[in-house]
């Protein structure tokens, strides 16, 4: 991968990670967490760990986002703290 693109993806990972823990809306947090997982999947694939990237894409970006949203629908969307 081109190193500029690599740095850009790394920067986006950090931005997403900070956004997930600061955003108040839980649904937005779940969606941003999916974006974070997918960016991590790109980084894993770039580092040659294709198996880990595959797991990250299916479990992290796919199933866990759906499970988070299913859990949020059972509670309130806004966090109090």
């Amino acid at each position, binding site marked *: 991968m081109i190193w500029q693109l690599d740095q850009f993806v790394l920067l986006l990972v950090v931005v997403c990670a900070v956004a997930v823990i600061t955003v108040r809306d839980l649904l937005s947090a779940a969606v941003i967490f999916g974006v974070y997982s997918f960016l991590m999947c790109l980084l894993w694939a770039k580092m040659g760990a*294709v*198996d880990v*990237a*595959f*797991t990250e894409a*299916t*479990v992290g970006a*796919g*199933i866990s986002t*759906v*499970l988070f*949203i*299913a*859990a949020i*629908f*059972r509670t309130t969307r806004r966090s109090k703290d």
Partner: protein
Amino acid sequence: MKQLQEQVARNPEGDNLIIRTAVRLLVPFIQLYGLYVIVHGHYSPGGGFQGGVVLGASFILLALAYDLKTSLRFMSERVNNLLSNLGALIFIGIALLCALLGGLFLDYAALERLIPLGAEEWHSLGIFLVELGVGLAVMSIMVSLFWDLASGGDMEEGL
């Protein structure tokens, strides 16, 4: 198609013809891809866990686009429980069979004493059987996780 249109006419709110038709076309290919990932797990990236998750995701997609009842029609709770237990049983069964035949736990070469195919062939076949068990178990656990989370455990109404 006609059946879909009738369904939409009967229950217009919350239903979407485009999403339902796309999901209906997509689900067989997703399941085929999941099977491919499981079967080719020992040659290429992928394996029992990833393939199982992809297979489970196809049923979750069905439950999201239609409703929980539709996905329960294609795979009932009873069959799901049976498959998850069968997957764990295949894994432990193969591993224990290796140990009982004189090898170590998960030592596939020992299976040669049961059916003589050659140690290398059994290394490949043994890992395939174990991955099949892992895939079945992971698929049913993922689907039942979603069912329980989406319906609150009573399997009446999903998302």
